Structure formats: structure tokens, C-alpha cells
């Protein structure tokens, strides 16, 4: 999330400390006629496309009153779906935070033939259509599994699908940070007597934490909302139903308030977790 969040307008104290030319550029120009108009159009587009529709979700969720909302989100199927979604998203994010960091390390620090192709393969799950990702998982772990592992209609199958689609996020956010890392600090730590594992834990890892958190946040958000990739492997069973599938099923049966209530919960959980990761990343960034 951090990449597009532009720097805060420089406050008074920072402004006083900064040299003249650079400061003027950082704060940016005030809006003129053309830029003001552009801002208006952008705001209108964002409102019509994103903000008003999301507000409509909240409004629809609240249309049956608090009791209606509460009944919708505490229905056993809703709770089961949410628990499955949140727990599997957490597990998957944790696994890919570790594996993603490891992969980033391998891609940046290691050198072997075909490395470029590995980079490409890592990006595939990100760009692949979700339904195709689902079919890919199904073709390996479905009923006629060629490798003899049948995960069709199981929560394991859901997890594998989520692992697949969230694979690139941490690897891709950690990679540039690791690339920019000054290797002399590691050498310095080694000359001071630190073993490789200690160097990694005490010197390399701390500056990577913000990038890991940012990637993990994206991975988690993706996992929380995933639909296409888990649809096929889940087999459409109740026990493998994630929240977005549950919302879709309510929508198909024209229970709009129920679907909206589920959607609202999904949205709130995603945002809370995103903000949480953002705080972790911010804190770690300030400490490091």
C-alpha cells in the first residue's frame, strides 16, 4: 500500500529545515484552473466507480437495521465462511512471508542459470486470471490428480489455491529493498564476529521488515477477497466456502442485504488488517 501513498505535505518544522529549492518541489504547486478541473474529474470518476458503490454496500447492509445486519453476519454459514477466510488468509500470508523473503534473497543474492525464468514464473500467479489459477490447481490437486494428491472439496485445497495466488507479493516487495541494501554492513558485522545466521537476523532482516509487512498486507488483502482461484477446488461445499463465495451465493439467491452484510465484514476485516500491517511497517521503518 505504501508505494502510492505520496509523501505527506511537509509540515512547518520540516519546511524550515529543508533547503529552499527542494522544499518548493516537494510541497507541490497549488491547483490551477486545468489541474483543478482534472482533480474534479478524477474525484467524480473515483466517486462514481468506487466510493459511492462501496457506500451503497454499507447502506444495503444496514437496510435491514442493526438486528438484520447482526443476524446476517452471525448466521452459522457466515461465521464458518469468515473463520475459514481469515484463518486461511493468515496461514497463507505467514507461509508466503517466509517463502517470499527466502525467494527474494535467492533472486537477489544467488546466481544460477535460468534465474531470469524463475523471476518470470514467480510473477505468473499474480497476472494469471484467477479462474485459470483455480483450474491450474484443480488439474493438479483435483479428483484425477496426476500426482495422487486429491484435495478437491477440502480446506487444504483452498489453502493451496491461496498460496498459489499470493506467492509473488512478499517476494516482489522485498526484492528491491534487498537489492538496495549495502552489503558492506553485512561484511562489517561478519568482521565483528557475527555468524551468518546472526548477520541475517540482526543486520539484514530488520530493514526488510517494512517491505515484508507491505507485501504481506497485499497478500493478505488478496487472500481475503479471493474468489476465482478457490471456486473450482472448493467443490462448492459448505465447509470449503470462503466469505466471497458465501456473499456470491447470497447474491445469486437475491439476498442483497445479506450479501452486502458479508461484503461489509470482509471489507472491514481487510482494512483493519491493512492498517495493522501499515503500522507495523511504519514502526519498523522508523526504528530501523
Amino acid at each position, binding site marked *: 500500500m505504501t*508505494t502510492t501513498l505520496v509523501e505527506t505535505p511537509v509540515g512547518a518544522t520540516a519546511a524550515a529545515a529543508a533547503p529552499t529549492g527542494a522544499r518548493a518541489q516537494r510541497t507541490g504547486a497549488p*491547483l490551477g484552473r486545468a489541474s483543478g478541473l*482534472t482533480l474534479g474529474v478524477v474525484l467524480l470518476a*473515483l466517486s462514481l466507480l468506487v466510493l459511492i458503490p462501496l457506500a451503497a454496500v454499507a447502506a444495503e447492509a444496514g437496510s435491514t437495521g442493526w438486528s438484520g445486519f447482526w443476524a446476517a453476519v452471525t448466521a452459522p454459514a457466515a461465521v464458518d465462511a469468515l473463520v475459514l477466510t481469515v484463518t486461511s488468509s493468515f496461514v497463507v500470508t505467514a507461509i508466503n512471508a517466509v517463502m517470499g523473503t527466502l525467494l527474494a534473497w535467492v533472486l537477489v543474492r544467488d546466481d544460477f542459470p535460468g534465474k531470469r525464468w524463475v523471476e518470470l514464473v514467480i510473477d505468473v500467479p499474480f497476472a494469471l486470471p484467477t479462474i485459470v489459477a483455480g483450474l491450474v490447481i484443480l*488439474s493438479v490437486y483435483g479428483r484425477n490428480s496426476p500426482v495422487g494428491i486429491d484435495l478437491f472439496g477440502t480446506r487444504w485445497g483452498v489453502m493451496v489455491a491461496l498460496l498459489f495466488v499470493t506467492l509473488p507479493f512478499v517476494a516482489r516487495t522485498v526484492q528491491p529493498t534487498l537489492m538496495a541494501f549495502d552489503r558492506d554492513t553485512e561484511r562489517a558485522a561478519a568482521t565483528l564476529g557475527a555468524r551468518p545466521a546472526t548477520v541475517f537476523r540482526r543486520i539484514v532482516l530488520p530493514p526488510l521488515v517494512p517491505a515484508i509487512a507491505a507485501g504481506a498486507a497485499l497478500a493478505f488483502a488478496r487472500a481475503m477477497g479471493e474468489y476465482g482461484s478457490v471456486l473450482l477446488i472448493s467443490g462448492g461445499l459448505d465447509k470449503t466456502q470462503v466469505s466471497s463465495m458465501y456473499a*456470491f451465493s447470497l447474491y445469486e439467491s437475491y439476498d442483497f442485504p445479506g450479501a452486502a452484510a458479508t*461484503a461489509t465484514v470482509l471489507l472491514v476485516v481487510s482494512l483493519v488488517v491493512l492498517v495493522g500491517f501499515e503500522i507495523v511497517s511504519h514502526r519498523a521503518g522508523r526504528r530501523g
Partner: protein
Amino acid sequence: MADTLAPARPSAIRPARSAGRIALRTVGLAYVGVLVLVPLGIITWRALSPGMPAFWAAISSEQAVTAFRLTAEVAFASVLLGTTFGVALGILLTRYHFVGRRLLGVLADLPMAVSPIVAGLALVLVYGRNGWFGGPLEAAGISIIYAVPGMILATTFVSLPLVLREVVPVLQEIGTDQEQAARVLGAGGWHTFWRITVPTIRPALTYGVVLALARCVGEFGAVAVVSGNVSGTGQTQTTTLVIAERVQQMEPGAYQLAFVLIVTTVAALLVAANIRRKDELS
């Protein structure tokens, strides 16, 4: 302590390091292999093993061709909208100072945190027949939901931040020097934008467009909600919807269509990787 300072130490430590390195490499590659590469190989085999005639039949049926065409139309329109939005907002966020700038940046990122199903549902609630704006629009003879405009809106929604996220860091990095130089040389805003800003951000912009294109071609959940696939009418099926239908109805031809999309995706990634490498070289 004395031996840690001995000159023999670096060479003594190197084998241990490279063993660790090979272990990490093995674990990493095995993970990617099992999770991504092997499955991709298997699906390719499933798509191609029935033979070329079957492959051709699957991707040249009327349903498939219609879906391809619709997918291309929807993706093109969405990428165009997303690119315009992303570049305009990117410039506003990095070049201007106004109240609520930071908030706007966060809001524009919001679609990244929204499930495609929620996105689709949200659009139905506003633009559907019984939605906030849907009623009046319907009365004016404009239908959005269960029609192509709704699919474009849904696809644009989910891909909205992609171009923005690519261009903002570059706009920040290049700073305003070149643009200011163009201004004092007599170029107005329009000239400065086309002659200086756009050429400078072109690699990032192209990269963002390629990513957005891949995402738009492959969008499934949001389109599934708004397309009317639900109500069972034809003609609003993109490729991904056809794939889902063929799998769920146990019809043949899903793997072949999926294979086409995989090839498209990999091609897009190759283009993107190439752009990135050229950019790094210059």
C-alpha cells in the same frame, strides 16, 4: 577470541556459506516448482493432449470467439479508463498540493483491498435496476448491469490502481526539474505533459498498462457478478466466464481456453520484463 581474528577465517567460512546458499536455492526453487511450474506444465499437458483438432475446436467455437472479442473490448476500454485515471491522479498526487491529497491516495488504492465479488456487488447496488442510479438510467434507456458497460465498470474497478501504482514512484523520482525547464522555455501545461512528462514516465507507464491489461483480460469474480451470467443470458460472457461454465457443466474445452489465457499472460509478463530490463539498462 584470537582465532576469530585469524586470516584463515574468511576462507574457512566460505564453504559453509555456499552450502547455506545452495540449501536456500533448493528450497526456494522447489517451492516455486511444486506450487507454480509443475501445475502449469500439467495444465498445458491437459490442454494439448487431446490433440490439435480438439484444441482448435475448443477455441474456435462461436461461444469462444464471441467471448474472446468481448474480453478484448472490455479489457481495452478498462485499460484506457484506468490509464487515464492513473496518469491524471499520479500527476495530481505528485505535482500539486491540495487539502486531502494523502486521503485521495489512500482511496485510490482501495480497490486493491476489495474482493472482486464485493466490487461487483457494489456496482450492482448502484447501477442495477433497483440501484441508486440504475432506476433513472434504465428509464433513460441505458442499462449497465447485465450488460457490457457494467462489465467495463467492474473490470475498471479492480484494475484501477495498477497504472497509478506504477507511475507515482517514477513521477516522484524524476522530480519536477525537467518540467520546470520546459515551462521556462515557453511550454504550456499541455506541451509540457506530452513532450516531457509522458516520454519520461513511458517505461513505467507501459509496464503498468501491461499489468492492467493482464488483470483486465483475466478478471472473473467482479464480472461474474455484473455480467448476467447469473440470469443465464448469453452474449455477456468473457473468456474467464466461459472457462468457469465449461468446468462446472463438465463440458470440454476449459483447459484449452485456459491455456490461451496462460500464453497471453506469460507473453504480457515477458513484455513487461523486457521493458523493465531496458529501463534498468538506460
